[in-house]
């Protein structure tokens, strides 16, 4: 079965026809060309495919595109505003929160989702909050420091804030 779907992705409306079994991560990557969202484990463990869906961090390998019809999605490509990286992105640069970078888009989206719920987490809350994201390089310490940097420099940033505000206004978060 095929479905006509309409989503809002990084602020832009998208209209496409998709198969029932298509997963959101493949829609983002293959149809929209937004390859910043990565496929890691493909089994909802590693978190590399994390995006914000109506204001909540979710694993896009475990959501069907058809089930996301009508939703508002923010991917790593949508985190920056007016060409400026969000504080979470900048924190990862300042604190060297990545090595190979494969997990990084998921880490950024998951950290952004955490800060939307818990604006000033301590390092334990950051570690617990990111437990759904695996990194095989860093040992996590600098990722935690990167998120702490973001907390001290403005939090989630304007793009994620307006995305979350839209979801809140619709009663979805």
């Amino acid at each position, binding site marked *: *079965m095929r*479905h006509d779907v309409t989503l809002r992705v990084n602020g832009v409306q998208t209209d496409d026809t998709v*198969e*029932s*079994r298509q*997963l959101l991560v493949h829609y983002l990557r293959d149809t929209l060309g937004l390859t910043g969202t990565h496929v890691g484990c*493909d*089994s*909802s*463990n590693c*978190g590399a495919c*994390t995006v914000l*869906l109506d204001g*909540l*961090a*979710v*694993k896009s390998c*475990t*959501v*069907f595109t*058809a*089930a996301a*019809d009508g939703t508002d999605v923010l991917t790593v490509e949508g985190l920056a505003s007016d060409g400026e990286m969000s504080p979470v992105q900048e924190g990862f640069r300042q604190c060297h929160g990545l090595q190979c970078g494969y997990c990084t888009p998921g880490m950024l989206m*998951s950290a952004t*989702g*955490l800060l939307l719920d818990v604006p000033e987490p301590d390092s334990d809350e950051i570690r*617990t*909050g990111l*437990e*759904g*994201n695996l990194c095989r390089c860093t040992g996590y310490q600098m990722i935690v420091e990167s998120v702490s940097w973001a907390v001290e420099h403005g939090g989630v940033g304007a793009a994620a804030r307006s995305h979350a505000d839209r979801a809140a206004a619709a009663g979805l978060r």
Partner: protein
Amino acid sequence: MIPAGFDYIRATSLDHAAALLAEHDDDAKLMAGGHSLIPLMKYRLAAPSVLVDIGGLSELRMLETDGGVFRLGAGLRYRDLERSAELREQLPLLAHAVSTVGDRQVRARGTIGGAVMHGDPAADVPAVLLALEATFVLRGKDGDREVAAADFFVDFWQTAAEPDEILVEIRVPTRPGRSWSYQKFRQRSQDWATVGVAVQQLDDSGYAVALVNMGPVPLRATEVEQALADGADASTAAARVGAGTAPPSDVRGDAEYRAHLAEVLTATALTEVGVGG
């Protein structure tokens, strides 16, 4: 990993979902958050030809207390539950246990009803609802029926629900002021429990003790409960936890290791709820 082909249909109401189940008979499967079912479909362990999405139904989002019973809509997500101040106050064992499920992303999608219907003995929610003596309201073509948690979990991933029944509500007696403990052992933070032990004080002398991942279904540790009723201390009662269990052996531990863990975790839980050492 791509699931086998199927037809996705978003239900617009419970009646619509019920009609779709009746129309497609055994070929249709309900999905709410999809966090148990989609992985199974990817591994081709499940291949429904019709997938009925009930995740968005507001009819399944009830959350209220009603004369000593907490009524929970089956479509409530773990996130909704862990953030409910009323649940934390009235049913702290359940509120705590759901906050340990998976990770934040999983809890944003997964639902309490999905966990019940999936019936995984390694999951937190079924055993905790067993300890809380919950009942499940199933809606079928002949109306609603209520099944006690103790009668619901039949075998590994198998429940007493018929294929055309929809879990609509979970009813949990509140235990104001009673003590509780949830001990969950896992090697890594987001892992399933290797073993889990839920303890809920029921009245002045009685406790319910339920076990995660100690058999093909969530189990009540009735011999531990009886020992406590007879006045046993925590370690003596915990030593009885193996009775009636059939722990699995897998990559996270063999049966002997799980039996040891269950005794240690039970003793810890009993001490935490105030049973003397």
